Protein backbone atom coordinates (compact mmCIF):
# COMPACT_ATOMS: atom_id res chain seq x y z
CA UNK A 1 0.00 0.00 0.00
CA UNK A 2 1.51 3.27 -1.03
CA UNK A 3 0.71 6.68 0.36
CA UNK A 4 1.70 9.30 -2.08
CA UNK A 5 0.42 12.22 -0.09
CA UNK A 6 -0.97 13.12 3.31
CA UNK A 7 -4.39 13.46 1.58
CA UNK A 8 -4.56 9.72 0.90
CA UNK A 9 -3.38 8.96 4.40
CA UNK A 10 -6.10 11.22 5.77
CA UNK A 11 -8.78 9.63 3.56
CA UNK A 12 -7.70 6.18 4.66
CA UNK A 13 -8.03 7.05 8.32
CA UNK A 14 -11.43 8.66 7.68
CA UNK A 15 -12.62 5.59 5.81
CA UNK A 16 -11.49 3.28 8.59
CA UNK A 17 -13.39 5.41 11.08
CA UNK A 18 -16.49 5.33 8.87
CA UNK A 19 -16.20 1.57 8.48
CA UNK A 20 -15.86 0.99 12.20
CA UNK A 21 -18.68 3.38 12.97
CA UNK A 22 -21.07 1.74 10.58
CA UNK A 23 -20.39 -1.91 11.26
CA UNK A 24 -23.97 -2.73 12.05
CA UNK A 25 -23.46 -6.38 11.46
CA UNK A 26 -21.19 -6.76 14.42
CA UNK A 27 -22.54 -7.89 17.73
CA UNK A 28 -21.51 -4.71 19.46
CA UNK A 29 -23.89 -2.46 17.57
CA UNK A 30 -27.02 -4.56 17.42
CA UNK A 31 -30.22 -2.53 17.27
CA UNK A 32 -33.91 -3.08 17.69
CA UNK A 33 -36.97 -1.22 18.80
CA UNK A 34 -38.29 -1.04 22.36
CA UNK A 35 -40.39 -3.80 23.91
CA UNK A 36 -43.20 -2.75 26.22
CA UNK A 37 -45.46 -4.53 28.74
CA UNK A 38 -47.46 -3.48 31.81
CA UNK A 39 -49.32 -4.84 34.82
CA UNK A 40 -51.84 -2.94 36.99
CA UNK A 41 -49.32 -0.50 38.46
CA UNK A 42 -46.12 -0.64 36.43
CA UNK A 43 -44.90 -0.41 32.85
CA UNK A 44 -41.89 -2.54 31.91
CA UNK A 45 -39.80 -1.23 29.06
CA UNK A 46 -36.98 -3.07 27.29
CA UNK A 47 -34.94 -0.24 25.83
CA UNK A 48 -31.36 -0.80 24.80
CA UNK A 49 -29.13 -1.17 27.91
CA UNK A 50 -31.84 -1.69 30.53
CA UNK A 51 -35.23 -3.00 31.48
CA UNK A 52 -37.02 -0.05 33.09
CA UNK A 53 -39.93 -0.32 35.54
CA UNK A 54 -42.03 2.85 35.45
CA UNK A 55 -44.80 3.78 37.85
CA UNK A 56 -48.03 4.09 35.85
CA UNK A 57 -49.54 6.68 38.14
CA UNK A 58 -46.82 9.31 37.73
CA UNK A 59 -44.28 8.13 35.13
CA UNK A 60 -41.44 7.87 37.65
CA UNK A 61 -38.85 5.13 37.52
CA UNK A 62 -39.16 2.34 40.08
CA UNK A 63 -36.07 0.36 39.11
CA UNK A 64 -33.89 -0.57 36.20
CA UNK A 65 -32.07 -3.75 35.35
CA UNK A 66 -29.13 -3.99 35.35
CA UNK A 67 -28.51 -1.16 37.79
CA UNK A 68 -25.12 -0.41 36.25
CA UNK A 69 -25.05 -0.04 32.49
CA UNK A 70 -23.23 -2.82 30.66
CA UNK A 71 -22.44 -1.78 27.10
CA UNK A 72 -22.35 -5.37 25.92
CA UNK A 73 -25.93 -5.92 27.01
CA UNK A 74 -29.07 -4.71 25.28
CA UNK A 75 -32.77 -5.49 25.62
CA UNK A 76 -35.46 -5.11 22.98
CA UNK A 77 -37.70 -8.18 23.36
CA UNK A 78 -41.04 -7.38 24.97
CA UNK A 79 -40.89 -8.32 28.68
CA UNK A 80 -43.26 -11.15 29.58
CA UNK A 81 -44.91 -12.31 32.82
CA UNK A 82 -44.95 -15.94 33.84
CA UNK A 83 -47.96 -17.52 35.49
CA UNK A 84 -46.11 -17.50 38.84
CA UNK A 85 -45.26 -13.80 38.73
CA UNK A 86 -41.77 -13.64 37.22
CA UNK A 87 -40.82 -11.05 34.63
CA UNK A 88 -38.87 -12.50 31.68
CA UNK A 89 -36.52 -10.37 29.61
CA UNK A 90 -34.61 -11.68 26.60
CA UNK A 91 -31.43 -9.89 25.65
CA UNK A 92 -29.35 -9.34 22.52
CA UNK A 93 -26.38 -10.88 24.34
CA UNK A 94 -28.14 -14.24 24.03
CA UNK A 95 -29.36 -14.51 27.65
CA UNK A 96 -32.90 -14.84 28.96
CA UNK A 97 -33.31 -13.26 32.42
CA UNK A 98 -35.97 -13.85 35.05
CA UNK A 99 -36.55 -10.81 37.27
CA UNK A 100 -38.67 -9.99 40.28
CA UNK A 101 -41.15 -7.45 38.84
CA UNK A 102 -41.39 -5.67 42.20
CA UNK A 103 -37.67 -5.03 42.63
CA UNK A 104 -35.90 -5.83 39.37
CA UNK A 105 -33.66 -8.33 41.15
CA UNK A 106 -32.50 -11.21 38.98
CA UNK A 107 -33.88 -14.64 39.89
CA UNK A 108 -32.19 -16.80 37.27
CA UNK A 109 -30.79 -16.63 33.79
CA UNK A 110 -30.68 -18.98 30.83
CA UNK A 111 -27.53 -18.70 28.72
CA UNK A 112 -27.54 -21.77 26.48
CA UNK A 113 -28.64 -19.94 23.31
CA UNK A 114 -25.96 -18.52 21.04
CA UNK A 115 -27.87 -15.73 19.33
CA UNK A 116 -30.21 -12.85 20.15
CA UNK A 117 -33.57 -13.08 21.87
CA UNK A 118 -35.53 -10.79 19.56
CA UNK A 119 -38.96 -12.32 20.24
CA UNK A 120 -40.78 -12.10 23.54
CA UNK A 121 -40.93 -15.50 25.26
CA UNK A 122 -44.26 -17.27 25.62
CA UNK A 123 -45.03 -18.13 29.25
CA UNK A 124 -47.91 -20.50 30.03
CA UNK A 125 -48.66 -23.05 32.74
CA UNK A 126 -46.60 -25.73 30.97
CA UNK A 127 -43.54 -23.51 31.11
CA UNK A 128 -41.57 -20.98 29.09
CA UNK A 129 -41.05 -21.13 25.32
CA UNK A 130 -38.27 -18.79 24.22
CA UNK A 131 -37.71 -18.32 20.51
CA UNK A 132 -34.14 -17.43 19.57
CA UNK A 133 -32.61 -16.00 16.40
CA UNK A 134 -30.40 -19.11 16.20
CA UNK A 135 -33.29 -21.07 14.60
CA UNK A 136 -34.22 -22.71 17.93
CA UNK A 137 -37.16 -22.67 20.29
CA UNK A 138 -36.08 -23.36 23.89
CA UNK A 139 -38.64 -24.93 26.23
CA UNK A 140 -37.81 -24.22 29.88
CA UNK A 141 -39.52 -24.91 33.16
CA UNK A 142 -40.40 -21.97 35.37
CA UNK A 143 -37.01 -22.20 37.10
CA UNK A 144 -35.18 -21.74 33.82
CA UNK A 145 -34.09 -25.35 33.34
CA UNK A 146 -34.10 -26.48 29.72
CA UNK A 147 -36.66 -29.19 28.88
CA UNK A 148 -36.23 -29.49 25.15
CA UNK A 149 -35.08 -27.57 22.08
CA UNK A 150 -37.01 -27.41 18.83
CA UNK A 151 -34.96 -26.60 15.70
CA UNK A 152 -36.29 -24.79 12.65
CA UNK A 153 -34.56 -23.81 9.42
CA UNK A 154 -34.80 -20.05 9.93
CA UNK A 155 -34.35 -17.40 12.62
CA UNK A 156 -37.19 -16.98 15.11
CA UNK A 157 -38.21 -13.36 15.70
CA UNK A 158 -41.86 -13.80 16.67
CA UNK A 159 -43.44 -14.85 19.93
CA UNK A 160 -45.23 -18.20 19.59
CA UNK A 161 -48.88 -18.55 20.51
CA UNK A 162 -50.44 -21.22 22.73
CA UNK A 163 -53.51 -23.33 22.02
CA UNK A 164 -54.77 -24.95 25.24
CA UNK A 165 -57.22 -27.13 23.27
CA UNK A 166 -54.43 -29.20 21.76
CA UNK A 167 -51.79 -28.56 24.42
CA UNK A 168 -49.66 -27.23 21.62
CA UNK A 169 -47.94 -24.05 20.57
CA UNK A 170 -47.76 -22.44 17.14
CA UNK A 171 -44.33 -21.19 16.18
CA UNK A 172 -43.86 -18.73 13.28
CA UNK A 173 -40.45 -18.73 11.62
CA UNK A 174 -38.51 -16.67 9.14
CA UNK A 175 -38.04 -19.89 7.16
CA UNK A 176 -41.52 -19.13 5.70
CA UNK A 177 -43.24 -21.82 7.75
CA UNK A 178 -45.44 -22.11 10.79
CA UNK A 179 -44.93 -25.07 13.13
CA UNK A 180 -47.38 -26.73 15.49
CA UNK A 181 -45.41 -28.26 18.38
CA UNK A 182 -46.49 -30.45 21.27
CA UNK A 183 -45.92 -28.24 24.34
CA UNK A 184 -45.02 -31.21 26.52
CA UNK A 185 -42.63 -33.15 24.32
CA UNK A 186 -41.44 -30.72 21.68
CA UNK A 187 -42.57 -33.06 18.90
CA UNK A 188 -43.87 -31.62 15.63
CA UNK A 189 -47.63 -31.97 15.16
CA UNK A 190 -47.54 -30.41 11.70
CA UNK A 191 -45.78 -27.73 9.72
CA UNK A 192 -47.09 -25.65 6.86
CA UNK A 193 -45.93 -25.63 3.28
CA UNK A 194 -43.51 -22.83 2.33
CA UNK A 195 -45.71 -19.74 2.71
CA UNK A 196 -43.40 -17.74 0.36
CA UNK A 197 -42.34 -15.15 2.92
CA UNK A 198 -40.86 -14.73 6.39
CA UNK A 199 -43.15 -14.46 9.40
CA UNK A 200 -41.99 -12.04 12.12
CA UNK A 201 -45.34 -11.24 13.76
CA UNK A 202 -47.13 -13.34 16.37
CA UNK A 203 -50.06 -15.26 14.83
CA UNK A 204 -53.58 -14.57 16.02
CA UNK A 205 -55.59 -17.62 17.03
CA UNK A 206 -59.38 -17.60 17.01
CA UNK A 207 -62.05 -20.26 16.62
CA UNK A 208 -59.83 -22.92 15.14
CA UNK A 209 -58.05 -20.62 12.68
CA UNK A 210 -54.59 -19.07 12.78
CA UNK A 211 -53.96 -15.72 11.10
CA UNK A 212 -50.46 -14.76 10.01
CA UNK A 213 -48.91 -12.03 7.92
CA UNK A 214 -45.87 -12.63 5.73
CA UNK A 215 -43.18 -10.72 3.83
CA UNK A 216 -44.78 -12.09 0.66
CA UNK A 217 -47.44 -9.36 0.99
CA UNK A 218 -50.13 -11.67 2.27
CA UNK A 219 -52.37 -12.26 5.24
CA UNK A 220 -53.03 -15.98 5.48
CA UNK A 221 -55.60 -17.95 7.49
CA UNK A 222 -54.60 -21.51 8.40
CA UNK A 223 -56.56 -24.38 9.83
CA UNK A 224 -55.13 -24.82 13.33
CA UNK A 225 -55.70 -28.56 13.31
CA UNK A 226 -53.50 -29.38 10.32
CA UNK A 227 -51.90 -26.17 9.01
CA UNK A 228 -53.79 -26.13 5.70
CA UNK A 229 -54.32 -22.73 4.10
CA UNK A 230 -57.96 -21.64 4.38
CA UNK A 231 -57.64 -18.33 2.58
CA UNK A 232 -54.97 -15.85 1.50
CA UNK A 233 -55.52 -12.13 1.03
CA UNK A 234 -52.94 -10.06 -0.83
CA UNK A 235 -51.68 -6.88 0.83
CA UNK A 236 -49.87 -3.85 -0.55
CA UNK A 237 -46.56 -4.51 1.28
CA UNK A 238 -44.82 -6.71 3.84
CA UNK A 239 -46.87 -7.62 6.90
CA UNK A 240 -44.52 -7.17 9.87
CA UNK A 241 -46.66 -6.95 13.02
CA UNK A 242 -48.97 -9.80 13.94
CA UNK A 243 -52.70 -9.37 13.25
CA UNK A 244 -55.33 -9.02 15.98
CA UNK A 245 -58.73 -10.73 15.67
CA UNK A 246 -61.81 -9.34 17.33
CA UNK A 247 -65.49 -10.03 16.69
CA UNK A 248 -64.79 -11.81 13.43
CA UNK A 249 -62.50 -9.11 12.01
CA UNK A 250 -58.74 -9.29 11.46
CA UNK A 251 -56.88 -5.98 12.03
CA UNK A 252 -53.31 -5.34 10.91
CA UNK A 253 -51.04 -2.83 9.17
CA UNK A 254 -48.29 -3.19 6.55
CA UNK A 255 -45.02 -1.45 5.75
CA UNK A 256 -46.39 0.98 3.16
CA UNK A 257 -48.68 2.42 5.86
CA UNK A 258 -51.90 0.71 4.80
CA UNK A 259 -54.12 -0.54 7.61
CA UNK A 260 -56.53 -3.41 6.87
CA UNK A 261 -59.67 -4.84 8.41
CA UNK A 262 -60.53 -8.26 6.91
CA UNK A 263 -63.46 -10.61 7.43
CA UNK A 264 -61.95 -13.38 9.54
CA UNK A 265 -64.06 -16.08 7.90
CA UNK A 266 -63.33 -15.26 4.28
CA UNK A 267 -60.41 -12.83 4.13
CA UNK A 268 -62.41 -10.27 2.19
CA UNK A 269 -61.47 -6.65 2.86
CA UNK A 270 -63.96 -4.82 5.09
CA UNK A 271 -62.02 -1.57 4.85
CA UNK A 272 -58.51 -0.36 4.27
CA UNK A 273 -56.82 3.01 4.66
CA UNK A 274 -53.40 4.39 3.93
CA UNK A 275 -51.60 6.29 6.71
CA UNK A 276 -48.46 8.38 6.89
CA UNK A 277 -45.76 5.77 7.50
CA UNK A 278 -44.75 2.15 7.86
CA UNK A 279 -46.73 0.10 10.39
CA UNK A 280 -44.37 -2.39 11.99
CA UNK A 281 -46.39 -3.57 14.96
CA UNK A 282 -49.67 -5.13 16.01
CA UNK A 283 -52.49 -2.69 16.70
CA UNK A 284 -54.04 -2.31 20.12
CA UNK A 285 -57.70 -3.30 19.75
CA UNK A 286 -60.14 -2.50 22.57
CA UNK A 287 -63.86 -3.17 22.73
CA UNK A 288 -64.75 -0.37 20.35
CA UNK A 289 -61.52 1.30 19.23
CA UNK A 290 -58.19 0.49 17.72
CA UNK A 291 -54.85 2.24 18.19
CA UNK A 292 -51.67 1.95 16.21
CA UNK A 293 -48.56 3.96 15.40
CA UNK A 294 -46.51 4.65 12.30
CA UNK A 295 -42.81 5.05 11.63
CA UNK A 296 -43.58 8.68 10.75
CA UNK A 297 -44.30 9.28 14.44
CA UNK A 298 -48.11 9.34 14.39
CA UNK A 299 -50.44 7.74 16.90
CA UNK A 300 -53.87 6.93 15.48
CA UNK A 301 -57.09 6.14 17.30
CA UNK A 302 -59.83 4.76 15.04
CA UNK A 303 -63.18 3.30 15.71
CA UNK A 304 -63.65 -0.22 14.44
CA UNK A 305 -65.17 0.86 11.13
CA UNK A 306 -62.04 2.85 10.29
CA UNK A 307 -63.14 6.37 11.20
CA UNK A 308 -60.29 8.36 12.70
CA UNK A 309 -61.12 9.56 16.22
CA UNK A 310 -57.89 11.36 16.96
CA UNK A 311 -54.33 11.45 15.79
CA UNK A 312 -51.10 12.90 17.15
CA UNK A 313 -47.68 13.25 15.65
CA UNK A 314 -45.00 12.86 18.30
CA UNK A 315 -42.10 13.63 16.00
CA UNK A 316 -40.28 10.38 16.85
CA UNK A 317 -40.06 7.11 15.00
CA UNK A 318 -42.62 4.68 16.35
CA UNK A 319 -42.13 0.96 15.78
CA UNK A 320 -43.44 -0.55 19.02
CA UNK A 321 -47.03 -1.67 19.59
CA UNK A 322 -49.04 0.69 21.78
CA UNK A 323 -50.38 -1.03 24.88
CA UNK A 324 -53.23 -0.32 27.25
CA UNK A 325 -52.50 -0.08 30.97
CA UNK A 326 -55.65 0.69 32.92
CA UNK A 327 -57.01 3.88 31.40
CA UNK A 328 -53.71 4.79 29.75
CA UNK A 329 -52.31 4.19 26.30
CA UNK A 330 -48.53 3.76 26.45
CA UNK A 331 -46.26 4.61 23.55
CA UNK A 332 -42.53 3.76 23.42
CA UNK A 333 -40.72 5.92 20.84
CA UNK A 334 -37.43 4.95 19.20
CA UNK A 335 -34.41 7.23 19.09
CA UNK A 336 -35.94 9.82 21.43
CA UNK A 337 -34.99 11.16 24.86
CA UNK A 338 -38.55 10.36 25.91
CA UNK A 339 -38.61 6.60 26.48
CA UNK A 340 -42.28 6.31 27.35
CA UNK A 341 -45.30 8.56 26.81
CA UNK A 342 -48.69 7.98 28.43
CA UNK A 343 -51.96 9.25 26.96
CA UNK A 344 -55.48 8.85 28.20
CA UNK A 345 -57.89 7.08 25.88
CA UNK A 346 -58.86 10.42 24.32
CA UNK A 347 -55.30 11.28 23.36
CA UNK A 348 -54.46 13.76 26.13
CA UNK A 349 -50.87 13.34 27.29
CA UNK A 350 -50.61 12.31 30.95
CA UNK A 351 -46.90 12.00 31.59
CA UNK A 352 -43.56 11.38 29.93
CA UNK A 353 -40.77 9.15 31.21
CA UNK A 354 -37.23 10.41 30.56
CA UNK A 355 -34.68 8.16 32.23
CA UNK A 356 -32.01 9.90 34.23
CA UNK A 357 -28.42 8.87 33.71
CA UNK A 358 -27.28 6.83 36.71
CA UNK A 359 -23.79 7.49 38.00
Amino acid at each position, binding site marked *: *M*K*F*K*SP*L*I*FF*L*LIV*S*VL*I*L*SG*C*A*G*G*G*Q*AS*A*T*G*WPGLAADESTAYLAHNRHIYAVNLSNGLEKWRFPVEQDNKRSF*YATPTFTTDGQLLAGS*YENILFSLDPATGVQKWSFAEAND*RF*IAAPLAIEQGIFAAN*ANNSLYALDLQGTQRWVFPTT*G*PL*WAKPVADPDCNCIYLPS*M*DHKLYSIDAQTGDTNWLTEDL*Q*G*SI*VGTPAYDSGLLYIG*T*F*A*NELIALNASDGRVVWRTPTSD*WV*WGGPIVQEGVVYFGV*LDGTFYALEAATGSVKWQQKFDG*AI*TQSPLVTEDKLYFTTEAGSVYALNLNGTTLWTKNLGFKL*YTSPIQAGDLILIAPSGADEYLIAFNMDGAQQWVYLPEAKK
Partner: protein
Amino acid sequence: MWNTLIIDPMVNTLLWIYDLLWNNFGLAIIVFTVLIRLITLPLTYQQTKSAQKMQELQKSKQWQDIQKKHKGDREKLSQEQMRIYKEMGVSPFGSCLPTVIQFPIIIGLYQAIIASLAVTPTQLFNLSTHIYPFIPAAALIPLDNTFLWMNLSQPERLTIAGIGIPVLAIFVVITTYIQSKLMTPPSQPGEQGAQMTQAMNLYMPFLMGWLAYSFAAGLALYFIVGNLFTIAQYAIMGKVEWRNLLPSALMPKKVSKK
Protein backbone atom coordinates in the same frame (compact mmCIF):
# COMPACT_ATOMS: atom_id res chain seq x y z
CA MET B 1 -28.68 10.98 -2.19
CA TRP B 2 -25.98 8.63 -0.83
CA ASN B 3 -28.54 5.83 -0.52
CA THR B 4 -30.08 6.45 -3.94
CA LEU B 5 -26.81 6.66 -5.84
CA ILE B 6 -24.56 4.25 -3.97
CA ILE B 7 -26.21 2.01 -1.38
CA ASP B 8 -29.45 1.09 -3.17
CA PRO B 9 -27.84 -0.05 -6.44
CA MET B 10 -25.18 -1.97 -4.53
CA VAL B 11 -27.61 -3.68 -2.15
CA ASN B 12 -29.83 -4.74 -5.03
CA THR B 13 -26.92 -5.97 -7.13
CA LEU B 14 -25.69 -7.97 -4.14
CA LEU B 15 -29.14 -9.50 -3.61
CA TRP B 16 -29.43 -10.24 -7.31
CA ILE B 17 -26.06 -12.03 -7.30
CA TYR B 18 -27.09 -13.89 -4.14
CA ASP B 19 -30.22 -15.07 -5.95
CA LEU B 20 -28.16 -16.20 -8.96
CA LEU B 21 -25.56 -18.01 -6.84
CA TRP B 22 -27.85 -20.52 -5.19
CA ASN B 23 -28.49 -18.26 -2.16
CA ASN B 24 -24.86 -18.45 -1.08
CA PHE B 25 -23.99 -15.13 0.56
CA GLY B 26 -20.29 -15.90 0.85
CA LEU B 27 -20.01 -16.45 -2.90
CA ALA B 28 -22.17 -13.37 -3.48
CA ILE B 29 -19.75 -11.19 -1.46
CA ILE B 30 -16.77 -12.60 -3.39
CA VAL B 31 -18.36 -12.06 -6.82
CA PHE B 32 -19.76 -8.67 -5.86
CA THR B 33 -16.39 -7.43 -4.56
CA VAL B 34 -14.62 -8.60 -7.72
CA LEU B 35 -17.32 -7.00 -9.87
CA ILE B 36 -16.99 -3.62 -8.15
CA ARG B 37 -13.20 -3.80 -8.36
CA LEU B 38 -13.46 -4.54 -12.08
CA ILE B 39 -15.74 -1.57 -12.59
CA THR B 40 -13.27 0.70 -10.78
CA LEU B 41 -10.30 -0.80 -12.62
CA PRO B 42 -9.86 2.15 -15.03
CA LEU B 43 -9.57 4.46 -12.01
CA THR B 44 -7.01 2.20 -10.36
CA TYR B 45 -5.05 1.94 -13.59
CA GLN B 46 -5.04 5.71 -13.95
CA GLN B 47 -3.89 6.07 -10.36
CA THR B 48 -1.01 3.62 -10.84
CA LYS B 49 0.09 5.29 -14.04
CA SER B 50 0.08 8.74 -12.48
CA ALA B 51 1.95 7.50 -9.43
CA GLN B 52 4.60 5.91 -11.63
CA LYS B 53 5.03 9.09 -13.67
CA MET B 54 5.40 11.09 -10.50
CA GLN B 55 7.97 8.65 -9.17
CA GLU B 56 10.03 8.84 -12.35
CA LEU B 57 9.80 12.60 -12.27
CA GLN B 58 11.06 12.77 -8.71
CA LYS B 59 14.05 10.61 -9.60
CA SER B 60 14.97 12.77 -12.60
CA LYS B 61 18.12 14.86 -12.57
CA GLN B 62 16.16 18.02 -13.28
CA TRP B 63 14.03 17.46 -10.17
CA GLN B 64 17.00 16.65 -7.97
CA ASP B 65 18.79 19.73 -9.21
CA ILE B 66 16.03 22.18 -8.34
CA GLN B 67 15.73 20.56 -4.89
CA LYS B 68 19.38 21.39 -4.23
CA LYS B 69 19.27 24.76 -5.92
CA HIS B 70 16.26 26.15 -4.05
CA LYS B 71 16.75 24.31 -0.78
CA GLY B 72 16.22 27.40 1.37
CA ASP B 73 13.46 29.03 -0.67
CA ARG B 74 10.22 27.07 -0.45
CA GLU B 75 8.24 29.49 -2.58
CA LYS B 76 10.73 29.38 -5.43
CA LEU B 77 11.04 25.62 -5.10
CA SER B 78 7.29 25.27 -5.37
CA GLN B 79 7.17 27.47 -8.48
CA GLU B 80 9.92 25.43 -10.10
CA GLN B 81 8.20 22.16 -9.24
CA MET B 82 4.97 23.38 -10.82
CA ARG B 83 6.91 24.40 -13.93
CA ILE B 84 8.42 20.92 -14.24
CA TYR B 85 5.03 19.28 -13.69
CA LYS B 86 3.69 21.39 -16.55
CA GLU B 87 6.61 20.68 -18.84
CA MET B 88 6.48 16.93 -18.23
CA GLY B 89 2.68 16.77 -18.45
CA VAL B 90 2.33 15.35 -14.92
CA SER B 91 -0.51 16.31 -12.63
CA PRO B 92 0.53 16.41 -8.97
CA PHE B 93 -2.97 15.20 -8.05
CA GLY B 94 -3.10 12.58 -10.79
CA SER B 95 -2.65 9.68 -8.40
CA CYS B 96 -4.87 11.13 -5.67
CA LEU B 97 -7.98 11.90 -7.68
CA PRO B 98 -8.84 8.32 -8.70
CA THR B 99 -8.34 7.30 -5.07
CA VAL B 100 -10.69 10.04 -3.90
CA ILE B 101 -13.31 8.85 -6.39
CA GLN B 102 -12.88 5.24 -5.24
CA PHE B 103 -13.41 5.95 -1.55
CA PRO B 104 -17.20 6.42 -1.73
CA ILE B 105 -17.42 3.23 -3.78
CA ILE B 106 -15.39 1.20 -1.29
CA ILE B 107 -17.34 2.58 1.68
CA GLY B 108 -20.62 1.98 -0.18
CA LEU B 109 -19.57 -1.58 -0.97
CA TYR B 110 -18.90 -2.22 2.68
CA GLN B 111 -22.16 -0.60 3.79
CA ALA B 112 -24.13 -2.61 1.22
CA ILE B 113 -22.70 -5.87 2.58
CA ILE B 114 -23.52 -4.91 6.17
CA ALA B 115 -27.02 -3.70 5.21
CA SER B 116 -27.76 -6.97 3.41
CA LEU B 117 -26.66 -9.05 6.40
CA ALA B 118 -29.57 -7.55 8.41
CA VAL B 119 -29.77 -9.53 11.64
CA THR B 120 -31.96 -7.30 13.80
CA PRO B 121 -35.41 -5.81 13.21
CA THR B 122 -34.05 -2.31 12.67
CA GLN B 123 -31.49 -3.53 10.15
CA LEU B 124 -34.05 -5.65 8.29
CA PHE B 125 -36.53 -2.80 8.25
CA ASN B 126 -33.85 -0.52 6.81
CA LEU B 127 -32.98 -3.17 4.24
CA SER B 128 -36.63 -3.33 3.17
CA THR B 129 -36.45 0.36 2.26
CA HIS B 130 -33.50 -0.24 -0.10
CA ILE B 131 -34.88 -3.13 -2.14
CA TYR B 132 -36.07 -2.51 -5.70
CA PRO B 133 -39.48 -3.97 -6.64
CA PHE B 134 -38.06 -6.45 -9.17
CA ILE B 135 -35.84 -8.20 -6.59
CA PRO B 136 -37.71 -11.22 -5.17
CA ALA B 137 -37.05 -10.09 -1.61
CA ALA B 138 -39.74 -12.17 0.09
CA ALA B 139 -38.24 -15.37 -1.31
CA LEU B 140 -34.66 -14.36 -0.45
CA ILE B 141 -35.15 -13.16 3.14
CA PRO B 142 -33.74 -14.20 5.50
CA LEU B 143 -30.43 -14.37 3.67
CA ASP B 144 -28.48 -17.50 4.45
CA ASN B 145 -25.53 -16.05 6.37
CA THR B 146 -23.59 -19.29 6.58
CA PHE B 147 -20.51 -19.84 4.40
CA LEU B 148 -18.10 -22.71 5.00
CA TRP B 149 -17.69 -22.77 8.80
CA MET B 150 -18.72 -19.15 9.23
CA ASN B 151 -21.76 -17.13 10.14
CA LEU B 152 -21.11 -14.08 7.99
CA SER B 153 -23.16 -11.83 10.25
CA GLN B 154 -21.06 -12.59 13.34
CA PRO B 155 -17.37 -12.13 14.11
CA GLU B 156 -15.68 -15.30 12.82
CA ARG B 157 -13.93 -17.90 15.01
CA LEU B 158 -12.95 -21.43 14.03
CA THR B 159 -13.06 -23.56 17.15
CA ILE B 160 -10.21 -26.04 17.31
CA ALA B 161 -9.72 -28.03 20.55
CA GLY B 162 -12.05 -25.64 22.33
CA ILE B 163 -10.15 -22.52 21.25
CA GLY B 164 -11.79 -20.00 18.93
CA ILE B 165 -9.26 -19.02 16.27
CA PRO B 166 -10.02 -15.90 14.20
CA VAL B 167 -8.90 -17.44 10.91
CA LEU B 168 -10.30 -14.71 8.67
CA ALA B 169 -8.76 -11.92 10.77
CA ILE B 170 -5.37 -13.68 10.49
CA PHE B 171 -5.81 -13.93 6.71
CA VAL B 172 -6.73 -10.25 6.58
CA VAL B 173 -3.52 -9.32 8.43
CA ILE B 174 -1.42 -11.56 6.15
CA THR B 175 -2.97 -10.45 2.85
CA THR B 176 -2.92 -6.77 3.83
CA TYR B 177 0.75 -7.09 4.79
CA ILE B 178 1.64 -8.93 1.58
CA GLN B 179 -0.27 -6.41 -0.48
CA SER B 180 1.53 -3.51 1.21
CA LYS B 181 4.95 -5.09 0.72
CA LEU B 182 4.37 -6.06 -2.89
CA MET B 183 3.13 -2.66 -3.90
CA THR B 184 5.76 -0.57 -2.16
CA PRO B 185 8.51 0.45 -4.53
CA PRO B 186 12.06 0.32 -3.16
CA SER B 187 12.78 3.65 -1.55
CA GLN B 188 15.96 5.49 -0.89
CA PRO B 189 16.81 6.27 2.70
CA GLY B 190 15.45 9.68 3.56
CA GLU B 191 13.13 9.75 0.53
CA GLN B 192 10.07 11.90 1.03
CA GLY B 193 7.16 9.83 2.32
CA ALA B 194 9.21 6.65 2.75
CA GLN B 195 9.00 6.70 6.52
CA MET B 196 5.29 7.21 6.47
CA THR B 197 4.86 4.37 3.98
CA GLN B 198 6.93 2.04 6.14
CA ALA B 199 4.95 2.92 9.24
CA MET B 200 1.67 2.37 7.42
CA ASN B 201 2.85 -0.96 6.03
CA LEU B 202 3.23 -2.14 9.60
CA TYR B 203 0.21 -0.40 11.05
CA MET B 204 -2.45 -1.08 8.41
CA PRO B 205 -2.46 -4.91 8.51
CA PHE B 206 -3.15 -4.83 12.23
CA LEU B 207 -5.80 -2.15 11.90
CA MET B 208 -7.58 -4.12 9.19
CA GLY B 209 -7.11 -7.31 11.21
CA TRP B 210 -8.69 -5.67 14.22
CA LEU B 211 -11.72 -4.65 12.13
CA ALA B 212 -11.98 -8.19 10.78
CA TYR B 213 -11.66 -9.61 14.30
CA SER B 214 -14.31 -7.34 15.78
CA PHE B 215 -16.98 -7.12 13.11
CA ALA B 216 -19.09 -9.39 10.91
CA ALA B 217 -17.20 -12.13 9.04
CA GLY B 218 -18.77 -10.85 5.79
CA LEU B 219 -16.60 -7.75 6.16
CA ALA B 220 -13.44 -9.83 6.68
CA LEU B 221 -14.27 -11.85 3.57
CA TYR B 222 -14.63 -8.63 1.63
CA PHE B 223 -11.23 -7.40 2.90
CA ILE B 224 -9.50 -10.63 1.87
CA VAL B 225 -11.07 -10.74 -1.60
CA GLY B 226 -10.25 -7.05 -2.08
CA ASN B 227 -6.62 -7.61 -1.06
CA LEU B 228 -6.20 -10.64 -3.31
CA PHE B 229 -7.78 -8.79 -6.22
CA THR B 230 -5.44 -5.83 -5.75
CA ILE B 231 -2.38 -8.11 -5.64
CA ALA B 232 -3.53 -9.92 -8.80
CA GLN B 233 -4.30 -6.65 -10.52
CA TYR B 234 -0.87 -5.17 -9.79
CA ALA B 235 0.80 -8.44 -10.76
CA ILE B 236 -0.94 -8.39 -14.16
CA MET B 237 0.13 -4.77 -14.60
CA GLY B 238 3.73 -5.80 -13.76
CA LYS B 239 3.88 -3.43 -10.82
CA VAL B 240 4.48 -5.95 -8.07
CA GLU B 241 7.79 -5.87 -6.19
CA TRP B 242 8.07 -9.60 -5.42
CA ARG B 243 11.53 -9.22 -3.92
CA ASN B 244 10.02 -7.07 -1.14
CA LEU B 245 8.61 -10.26 0.32
CA LEU B 246 12.06 -11.70 0.92
CA PRO B 247 13.73 -11.00 4.24
CA SER B 248 16.41 -8.34 3.83
CA ALA B 249 19.18 -10.93 4.50
CA LEU B 250 18.13 -12.82 1.36
CA MET B 251 17.86 -9.74 -0.80
CA PRO B 252 20.44 -9.54 -3.56
CA LYS B 253 23.14 -7.12 -2.45
CA LYS B 254 24.32 -4.34 -4.63
CA VAL B 255 27.89 -4.85 -5.73
CA SER B 256 29.85 -1.66 -5.59
CA LYS B 257 32.34 -1.16 -8.40
CA LYS B 258 35.70 0.12 -7.45
